[in-house]
């Protein structure tokens, strides 16, 4: 590649300003059209959105050459990129990343039903030319993303357990990046769902809210193990859970909910989801959103990807440390003040406190096990190790699933101000505290046995 570095042109590839594409057929007859998306792939490649089999597409297949003109939305400088076609991707991280961005762009321009990504055409950039002309001086009065990343990583290093680590992550996004609305979701829920374990900036925490695989930017980021972001609001990447809950609130759906409403913004215009991966395996997603358009660009994506990577490393390290835990000991009677009836349904491992839904799935099964043991033996201190080794709980391989579920359980109990709570009792240990007497019911025990 000759001329300017592609990395310096990434602002011009955010889709803020229109781009123009020229191709020629084998006889040199030119064709020129607007193009929805020019996507930065790496320092030597870009990808263009392939949406229709049209003259542009035929020309590219014939000659494998193109020239694209992009515009920096801040300096307003134009750049011409000479391109050589390499191939088309129709699935995978690059395709999904472009598909999400295109959905946002299409929605912004009111052509959601027309724009559908058929493929990501990858081109090697042969040369970059700054088009001569006046430009606006670049304003650099903004926080340094590199410094923000460094401060965040340092704060994560100081966290002593997973609970603190997750809350610290969302707090740092607020403090260091100015991102007010964010959440951490963990993988390993039922049917591959992700569930929220920490959130910040929403009227309700939404801890325990679930996102299905492939649903919204979070579900796609987890499925593809790739960052996904959108700069404009779009129907396609909304969360069905949230919509269903609003339908339920308005009386359109009448069934008793056994799930927790997704806490996201009602009208997000920018969203980003970054996989939290250990050894190539997605264990969670870091998610952020904002009510303004185009908040998360390539630079923010890189910075937040580093944060997500560091978070994954810290989670793995804390897990190692937690495994050197000590056995539980103390037994103490719970103070009694009234009675709480806890109902457990085997069918979906859901737990209700009196008539209020609390939690389901593995977190529900854990609570039920603790409560039964507490009532049977008077124990109120437990270790994560004994839960991990309990075959009845059928925990998935990754033990952060257990830690995350305990966090989820603790937060759900706390936010419901239940007379039942879970407290930390040292590394790898926790305490069940009941401020009332407990009655346990298993309404479907007979059905399950039969």
């Amino acid at each position: 590649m000759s001329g300017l570095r592609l990395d310096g042109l990434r602002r011009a590839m955010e889709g803020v300003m229109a781009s123009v594409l020229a191709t020629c057929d084998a006889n040199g007859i030119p064709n020129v059209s607007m193009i929805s998306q020019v996507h930065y792939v790496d320092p030597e490649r870009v990808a263009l959105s392939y949406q229709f089999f049209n003259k542009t597409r035929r020309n590219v297949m014939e000659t494998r050459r193109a020239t694209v003109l992009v515009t920096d939305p801040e300096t307003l400088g134009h750049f011409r990129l000479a391109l050589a076609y390499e191939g088309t991707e129709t699935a995978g991280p690059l395709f999904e990343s472009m598909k999400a961005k295109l959905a946002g762009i299409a929605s912004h321009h009111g052509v959601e039903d027309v724009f559908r990504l058929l493929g990501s055409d990858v081109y090697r950039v042969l040369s970059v030319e700054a088009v001569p002309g006046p430009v606006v001086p670049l304003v650099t009065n903004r926080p340094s993303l590199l410094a923000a990343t460094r401060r965040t990583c340092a704060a994560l290093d100081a966290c002593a357990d997973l609970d603190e680590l997750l809350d610290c992550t969302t707090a740092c996004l607020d403090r260091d990046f100015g991102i007010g609305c964010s959440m951490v979701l963990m993988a390993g829920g039922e049917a591959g769902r992700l569930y929220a374990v920490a959130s910040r900036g929403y009227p309700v925490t939404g801890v325990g809210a679930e996102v299905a695989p492939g649903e919204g930017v979070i579900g796609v980021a987890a499925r593809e193990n790739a960052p996904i972001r959108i700069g404009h609001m779009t129907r396609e990447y909304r969360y069905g859970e949230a919509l269903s809950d609003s339908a339920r609130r308005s009386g359109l759906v009448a069934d008793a909910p056994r799930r927790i409403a997704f806490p996201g913004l009602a009208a997000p215009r920018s969203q980003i989801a970054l996989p939290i991966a250990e050894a190539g395996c997605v264990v969670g997603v870091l998610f952020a959103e904002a009510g303004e358009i185009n908040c998360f660009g390539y630079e923010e994506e890189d910075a937040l990807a580093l944060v997500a990577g560091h978070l994954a490393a810290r989670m793995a390290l804390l897990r190692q440390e937690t495994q050197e835990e000590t056995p539980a000991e103390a037994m103490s009677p719970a103070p009694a003040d009234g009675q709480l009836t806890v109902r457990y349904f085997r069918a979906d491992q859901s737990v209700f406190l009196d008539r209020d839904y609390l939690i389901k799935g593995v977190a529900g099964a854990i609570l039920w096990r603790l409560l039964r043991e507490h009532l049977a033996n008077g124990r109120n201190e437990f270790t994560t190790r004994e839960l991990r080794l309990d075959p009845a709980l059928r925990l998935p391989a990754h033990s952060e699933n257990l830690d995350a579920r305990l966090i989820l359980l603790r937060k759900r109990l706390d936010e419901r101000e239940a007379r039942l709570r879970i407290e930390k009792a040292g590394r790898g240990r926790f305490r069940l505290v009941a401020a009332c007497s407990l009655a346990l019911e298993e309404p479907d025990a007979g059905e399950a046995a039969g």
Partner: protein
Amino acid sequence: MTAAPPESDAPEPRPVVPPALVAFAQSGCGVAIASSGADGAPILGLGVGCRISAAGVFRILLGETANPALLSALADGRPVAVTFTATRNHDSFQVKAALAEIRPASPDDLPEMDRQNALFRDGLVEIGYSPVQAVGYCVWQSDDLVAIELVPERVFTQSPGPGAGTEIAR
């Protein structure tokens, strides 16, 4: 600088562009111009605006400094394509010709370029550009303008969608 009227040296015109598109092209569109080099590689530039004579000659104004390769290709008799795109709804059409003539800009081009540019800027703001972005995107200097003139031989619709590329007239 003096300039010939738009159609002075043009070949015998054959107006093939429907009147609605003639009006559309002069309504403050985004104008993109392409040609090809001797090696067949595409060459791309942005235009400032367009004047269309009664005889159907398209006179497209563009910056000379920003487009040396494009002007050189056209001077060498290479083919040309020009796309006009409305900012508000992305309606678009493209004209193609085997060649274009390069002409100096004329003082009487300027008021029309000012008018079309103002419309174009308004359209950009309407779709979300900031006023600064809108001005910057289509900034031009009157002493740097040059004109190319062509008689469209083929006309295609380019509006986004599967129908893009359909030939309107030939």
